[in-house]
């Protein structure tokens, strides 16, 4: 077989819960397995790792069969890395021995990530001689990630690695996760129920609900769908890839350019040309038939309505727009939509109150 990418088909019945998925996922980048708790995302990840016994399953990773009707490799014979929600370090070993645990069990020829590389990437050189008991939650999780990397995985599985941490610790870890994404060529499956993490880290998204896949595809496209069966409510919005185009030092603003237009954002000191992601929440976008002149809103973009759909609240409607080649979501009241006569094809102005630069 020469299929690249990751093919996963699992069917699993528990009392009161069925996981039934059939996925073809890209063999690169970060794929977010996203959904509410109880949707089966962790079970799916555990099935991929072989930690959950699934009799009816097929799994191949870049052409290599890990599981089908005739073979089912046990977890320890699958070249993967797994990051648990709690770092799950071995308490009897110091940090260095924890890192070496997986690394020295990988045959030399299959070793693709050196210990030094893993240590440097997670910035844990100063912790090597400490015991896990003396580390903070954030440090433990960084060691857990480095330990998984040092085992040279061909697929890195992360089960809500930030969920057990508080906000400050999350902010401490996120840059390292972004670094993995930018510097390593290892496909990552990232389980999360937090839309902001997904927006920041993922390239692809698989949305799960009640053990079934309800949407799957590239992040930008999938998040911009108004028919997404998972109601994101306040978190609905789009993520656009952009680059810093200019900086206005007088006003401390930066101009970022995406496929379809330019946006003013607060200058965060990033150099011109730097690639960024911007997240625009639907609740921060309002619509007008004509560009308003006397307004505090800096970003007003000409757009075309492409679809309207119901929102979590019956008073609201979710409007999908196109700005050039990029999608945008706006959430407005049904009353306003009616007054503006919103319908597919209508040219309109999108007024964007807030743009978040993420990564």
């Amino acid at each position: 077989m020469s299929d690249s990418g990751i093919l996963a088909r699992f069917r699993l019945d528990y009392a009161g819960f069925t996981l039934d998925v059939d996925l073809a996922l890209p063999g690169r980048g970060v794929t977010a397995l996203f959904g509410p708790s109880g949707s089966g995302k962790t079970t799916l990840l555990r099935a991929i790792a072989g930690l959950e016994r699934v009799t009816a399953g097929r799994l191949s990773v870049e052409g290599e069969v890990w599981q089908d009707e005739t073979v089912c490799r046990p977890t320890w014979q699958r070249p993967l890395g797994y990051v648990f929600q709690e770092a799950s370090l071995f308490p009897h070993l110091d940090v260095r021995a924890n890192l070496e645990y997986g690394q020295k069990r990988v045959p030399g020829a299959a070793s693709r990530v050196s210990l030094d590389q893993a240590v440097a990437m997670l910035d844990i050189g100063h912790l090597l001689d400490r015991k896990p008991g003396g580390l903070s939650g954030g440090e433990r999780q960084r060691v857990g990630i480095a330990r998984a990397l040092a085992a040279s995985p061909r697929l890195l599985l992360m089960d809500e690695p930030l969920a057990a941490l508080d906000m400050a610790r999350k902010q401490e870890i996120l840059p390292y996760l972004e670094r993995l994404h930018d510097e390593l060529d290892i496909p990552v499956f990232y389980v999360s129920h937090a839309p902001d993490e997904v927006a920041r880290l993922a390239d692809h998204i698989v949305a799960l609900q009640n053990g079934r896949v309800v949407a799957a595809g590239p992040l930008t496209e999938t998040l911009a769908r108004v028919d997404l069966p998972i109601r994101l409510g306040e978190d609905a919005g789009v993520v656009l890839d952009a680059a810093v185009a200019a900086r206005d030092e007088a006003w401390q603003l930066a101009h970022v350019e995406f496929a379809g237009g330019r946006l003013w954002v607060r200058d965060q000191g990033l150099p011109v040309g730097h690639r960024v992601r911007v997240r625009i929440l639907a609740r921060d976008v309002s619509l007008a038939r004509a560009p308003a002149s006397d307004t505090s809103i800096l970003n007003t973009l000409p757009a075309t309505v492409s679809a309207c759909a119901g929102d979590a609240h019956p008073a609201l409607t979710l409007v999908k727009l196109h700005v050039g080649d990029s999608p945008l979501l706006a959430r407005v009241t049904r009353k306003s939509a009616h007054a503006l006569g919103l319908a597919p094809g209508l040219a309109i102005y999108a007024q964007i109150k807030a743009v978040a630069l993420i990564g």
Partner: protein
Amino acid sequence: MLTATDWSAIRLTFELAGVTTLLLLVLGTPIAWWLARTRSAWKGAVGAVVALPIVLPPTVIGFYLLVAMGPNGSVGKLTESLGLGVLPFTFAGLVVASVFYSLPFVVQPIQNAFEAIGERPLEAAATLRASPMDTFFSVVLPLARPGYLTATVLGFAHTVGEFGVVLMIGGNIPDKTRVVSVQIYDHVEAMDYAQAHWLAAGMVVFSFAVLLLLYTLNPTGRRRA
């Protein structure tokens, strides 16, 4: 002070306890692992059999072992056909009896230690390419160390203290089966209280020292006793 026969009894006692404890650590580990991990319906029954020596009078254990290991018992016939003779009234017979008698005191602390480790470290090891056997030696055993320490001390001390089983199986043969507890009994029978005091006080001091060691080295480990 202590006589030559007293010293012989002490030496024999420690030999018996040492051999028994080593055997129990080896035999008890798979039993404890199975009891800690299984979801089998037999778990309760096997656990109860292992714990029986805690509640049974030692004479009952000794009686059945004597019958089984005697020339007409199933074990006795087996050992005779293997050219080993019969086990009662030998040191080997005492070892076999002590293994049964002290089994729960070794299995239960190890089982508790295994159960306390939980599933997660085993899963983490598997995701880091460790085979189940590899995981057992590199993760489970080190994490169960407090349990092993408790098991060793309790198994040893409990074997040192046995009396009823020894009398039933081993009798009272000097240098072969006469252990300290039997020797004390002999002194008392002979109204030789002074000699009995030396040995009995020695046992008290020994037992206290052992428990002190256990509680000092292992302050947080789970233990019974």
